[in-house]
């Protein structure tokens, strides 16, 4: 019988377009120290660390986690690094959950960190094209990288295939309204990269097309930052909660799925994000959820692109496939709607510090559950080429 696992502490550093003042060493240490403080723990009480770092090249080092072990005070203890594309943070939480549930540890640290904009393109004298190139090394090295593969054109393939099957869904007016809504929600996230960048739907509509059909204000922004969680098995979690007076946020469901990376017969069905569908429904089954729209109060979804967020919400059962417009037109995610989606502003406005992003989502979901007294949240991570990886996690208030 596996043990129940809960979150007892969480912290994020500010997510910034560029941290001139700090390397990823200090960002990782800051998040760790703040999470420990939040949980009322000291580092010697922690049994091991799960690092979420996506890309070696961003950190400019292979095995970039090795210097962190001593910096965060966990020398001579367990440390493992998880790297799963955009879903790195979510997969890192999933791994920590498994070790704790298995009884290997009592308390584990989840530490996501990324410095995505130290890279620089000396031809355009700007960072973004080099950031995109660095992620571009994630495409298939034999058959795709030399075609100019990028994360955006890869996700756009899935979105356009979905729109081939569901013409009229994901209307430009709807995606613009979702982005505008997220830009309002980000106001309450004091750590967000674009906290004060509120935009109107018209501004979204008028922003330039980066990769058709995505406009600039419909895409997550790359970021630098760290996020940390302290997770514990039930007995320890309850003891910590008694000391801090903060409720345990339990992980009651976890699901993961990696699709095929090539498309066609018996392979990836391009118009679907089956990874999200399978991961979410696996997590619902574990948590005993039959009707996610009514059972879940808060969703912190990985919104790499607004259109993908719409499809992900459909795949996770909040609207039928082909009816993503309902998220806005039926008021499902508008203020006062049935579900609060990305109250942190999502990665589009908070920033995407890849390894830290989904951990930041969990930090936000926990905060919302506690501060608003809500019952259940869903965390989601997506990543790799053509939305190949999907992870979902159900969190519940004590």
């Amino acid at each position, binding site marked *: 019988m596996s043990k129940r696992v809960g979150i007892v502490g969480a912290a994020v550093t500010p997510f910034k377009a560029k941290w001139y003042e700090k390397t990823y060493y200090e960002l990782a240490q800051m998040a760790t120290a703040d999470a420990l403080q939040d949980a009322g723990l000291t580092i010697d009480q922690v049994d091991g660390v799960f690092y979420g770092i996506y890309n070696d090249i961003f950190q400019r080092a292979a095995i970039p986690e090795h210097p962190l072990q001593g910096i965060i005070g966990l020398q001579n203890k367990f440390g493992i690094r998880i790297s799963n594309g955009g879903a790195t943070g979510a997969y890192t939480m999933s791994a920590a959950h498994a070790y704790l549930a298995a009884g290997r540890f009592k308390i584990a640290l989840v530490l996501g960190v990324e410095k995505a904009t130290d890279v620089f393109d*000396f031809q355009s004298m700007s960072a973004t*094209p080099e950031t995109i190139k660095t992620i571009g090394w994630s495409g298939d090295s*034999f058959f795709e990288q030399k075609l*100019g593969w990028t994360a955006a*054109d890869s996700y756009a393939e899935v979105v356009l295939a979905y729109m081939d099957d569901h013409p009229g869904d994901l209307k430009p007016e709807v995606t613009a309204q979702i982005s505008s809504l997220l830009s309002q929600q980000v106001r309450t996230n004091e750590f967000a990269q674009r906290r004060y960048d509120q935009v109107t739907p018209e501004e979204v509509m008028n922003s330039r*097309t980066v*990769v058709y059909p995505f406009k600039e204000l419909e895409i997550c922004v790359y970021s630098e930052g760290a996020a940390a969680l302290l997770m514990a098995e039930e007995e320890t979690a309850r003891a910590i909660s008694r000391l801090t007076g903060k409720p345990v946020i339990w992980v009651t469901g976890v699901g993961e799925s990696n699709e095929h990376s090539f498309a066609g017969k018996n392979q990836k069905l391009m118009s679907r994000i089956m990874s999200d569908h399978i991961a979410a429904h696996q997590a619902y089954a574990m948590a005993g959820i039959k009707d996610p729209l009514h059972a879940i109060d808060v969703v912190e979804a990985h919104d790499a692109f607004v259109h993908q967020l719409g499809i992900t919400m459909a795949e996770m059962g909040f609207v039928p496939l082909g009816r993503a417009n309902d998220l806005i037109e039926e008021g499902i995610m508008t203020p006062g709607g049935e579900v609060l989606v990305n109250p942190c502003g999502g990665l589009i406005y908070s920033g995407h510090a890849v390894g830290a992003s989904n951990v930041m989502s969990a930090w936000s979901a926990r905060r919302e559950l506690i501060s608003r007294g809500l019952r259940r949240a869903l965390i989601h991570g997506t990543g790799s080429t053509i939305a190949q990886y999907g992870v979902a996690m159900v969190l519940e208030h004590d």
Partner: protein
Amino acid sequence: MPEAEKKKVIPLEAIPDVGGHTVNVGGRDYLVLNDAMFTFYQRSMGEFSPFFLALRDEKKILGSRCTHCGQVRVPPFMTRCPDCNFAPTELVEVGQVGRMLSTPPITYFANSLFQKQVPFGRGRVLLEGADTALSVNVYTSKGILVPGLVKKDTEVKVVFRDSRLGEISDIFVVPASELTPEQVAKPGLQESEVNWEAAEEPALTSAGPDEANRFQELYGQLQTLAAEMNQTERARKDIADWRRQIQVKTTGGQLVLEINDGHLEVREGIIPSPDLVMVCQDLDVLVRGLAYKGSLTQAIMFRQLWISKNAEFTTIFKLERMARSLARSKKK
């Protein structure tokens, strides 16, 4: 290969000089160093060698057919079929005409290695005889690739580069409708056999007094915008280290946009050899773009704005970024 034709695996212009600078944040200096993480390879194409050699030497496309279930995978990215308990596969040749699996995306803002190639499409084609889709670049021989030109099920033809290395980029596809029936039927059709319509500068209608007056009015607005941008630090930063002279031609008149390391100047006149020529019937297209009330990229996509060099999309993006920076600073 003669020395002059040799290419480096890293473009020389992408490589920075050794050095660095300091950035002051909150009264403290932070050191920023130019750096690179580079590794060179002599990388074997292993089991994919027959596929890449066939592209390079025979202008053929190979797939792998499962000897048990018969599924044909293109590219032949596995030698055993995981759906049939890893039964062996065999190489087969497939067709060079196919249909798009889904509507392909079009990249306008590429990664730093592909900035000069935008806009380009990348999609997946189901070639005749194949069950799985091959990732390919999608081009048009008729000017700039715009949405709607290539969609799901559009029939496309594989075209081979004249100079091939044995890489996936040795081939690309164009809509079959742009070719003659003979070209569509021909195996190993090469890029030099396709009629690539030269980028012809669009003709402008002749101007009357109304157009000239409108030009003057919009020219004034453009100058105001440029002055505001030059007073906005963030907008100035967007064109730091960038220098371009742009000739703008409209029905009502011509003007020069000059980007000079953080400074944008608008003036009347004609320059002999501009870095870029922009043509739009109505100067309002440019004014709206810079005022963040429209998008220059969208104007290019919908043929309201013509630019002489695709490679200069980088300059377009910098101008659009300035527009957004100015709009943001005005909000604050």
